[in-house]
């Protein structure tokens, strides 16, 4: 059943019980973006303390892939330095572009999203939250190409 590559238990768990899905009034950084292909929209909030991402949350709506990716992302980047978070964003993109063989040690639950690579049209869904985080952190890298159609 090839669909199990994409709808893994861990993805569905994050979809049904998203972590850190809340607004964050004290956030110093926040950014919103939508995926015009499917209407998904995500806002990411970041609160910094002592140069670390002390709290990261998101709001929005979308498919299981975009929502679970956002949920896992917030867990994966919290506590990291800005530079460290940028590195993770880069490696996650590398995995979704099929260029980097992901290590579970480094990406944790996020490895579950690797199966999405086989569904090219859905890669944008997986990368959306990461685009927004990147923009919130002040750098633009548009690997997902969220162009209008």
């Amino acid at each position, binding site marked *: 059943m*090839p*669909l199990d590559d*994409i*709808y893994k238990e861990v993805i*569905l768990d994050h979809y049904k019980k998203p972590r850190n899905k809340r607004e964050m009034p004290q956030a110093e950084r926040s950014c919103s973006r939508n995926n*015009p*292909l*499917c*209407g*998904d*929209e995500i806002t990411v909030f970041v609160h910094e303390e002592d140069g670390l991402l002390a709290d990261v949350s998101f709001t929005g*709506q*979308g*498919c*299981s*892939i975009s929502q679970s990716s956002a949920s896992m992302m917030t867990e994966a980047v919290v506590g990291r330095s800005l530079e460290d978070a940028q590195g993770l964003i880069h490696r996650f993109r590398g995995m979704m572009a099929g260029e980097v063989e992901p290590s579970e040690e480094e990406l944790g639950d996020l490895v579950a999203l690797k199966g999405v690579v086989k*569904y090219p049209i*859905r890669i944008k*869904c997986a990368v959306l939250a990461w685009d927004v985080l990147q923009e919130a952190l002040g750098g633009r890298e548009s690997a997902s190409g969220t162009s209008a*159609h």
Partner: protein
Amino acid sequence: MAVTRERSTGLDVARIREDFPILSRTIGGKPLVYLDSTNTAQRPRQVIDAEREFYEQHNANAHRAIYFLGEEATDLYEGARAKTARFLGAPDPSTIVFTRGTTESINLVAHGWGRRFLKEGDEILLTEMEHHSDIVPWQFAARDTGAVLRYIGLTDDGLLDLVNLEDLLTERTKILCVTGMSNSLGTITPLPRLIEAAHAVGALVLVDGAQLVPHRGANVAELDCDFLAFSGHKMLGPTASGGLFAKRELLEAMDPFLGGGEMINEVFHDHSTFNDVPWKFEAGTMNVAQEVAFGAAIDYLEALGMDHVREHEEELTAYALERLAEAGARIFGPTDVAVRGGVVSFWYRDVHPHDLATILNEEGVAIRAGHHCNQLVMRRYGVPATARASFYIYNTMEEVDALVTALGRAESVLGL
């Protein structure tokens, strides 16, 4: 049982399906169930053959080649124009401009008529069910001329809300732009009433026929519309075929759209004079082979009979509405198939349309998921996107069953 019902519509669907090579494809070992003809239709062998034959036997540039092949190519190209005019009930072929399709046609009107004749304070009346291609070009024209955009809203059941039409359609209205059939809701709009009301206040009417023409046909003489835009690829023809009907006096008064070869009469250092209509709007080498094959698509539909096409789609749509409702889907748009074409937008339980499309794809079922270039409609009904199944001459009751069966997969995959 289903077979009997299909026969009653006068279309021999089994026979029709044999004309479409792609329908015998399998997807992941499962038969293709193509339910996305509103997006783009499939092509019968007759259309594919017409395009191939043009390239193999007649290829030369139209209107520019003084030799035998050039004459053949020109005759075939202009023959397709005459065929299109006849199919649409247009008075003569010069009222048909070939374009890449509906989007280009509407841009042509918004540019050539809109920028030329709209003035500050004039109003452009649209509807909230217009495709983005019948909104954005008018936003450009409004920005450049100072004209104002107004919108006819929608009722809860997916019809145009015409209660306050008299307030919206006034002597300030210069053009009403309205779809003949919504590509997300399926709604068939009351064109005769709207056109009469618009003309009564001196406004022109542009009909977006992208869905209406393939599925119901249109007669521009009976409708008395001023412009009708249509796409070949949604009615069995090649991509980038199709065009625009416009009343001749409008075409003559309008500015050209693209400048270039063949659209001119004489070129001087500082200005040019233009060719007669419709060639004044056909700059550069056109999609000659595609328009010729578009003519073959018209032949195919005429041989079936547009009344039969309509009856078949009404039956399929009624069946799909019934089965999807039984399955617990939320359906958008009218439930009466007399005012609804073969397009069914829906939400199945809480499954996001993108997830649903991916899961249905594993069962060989191809549907569209997204906002369908209808963001105003999505916003009106409070959803970011919908799943959409749409039907054409080759679809069967069994394919509707396959859709509904595949929906069940969503529950097991997502653990609902």
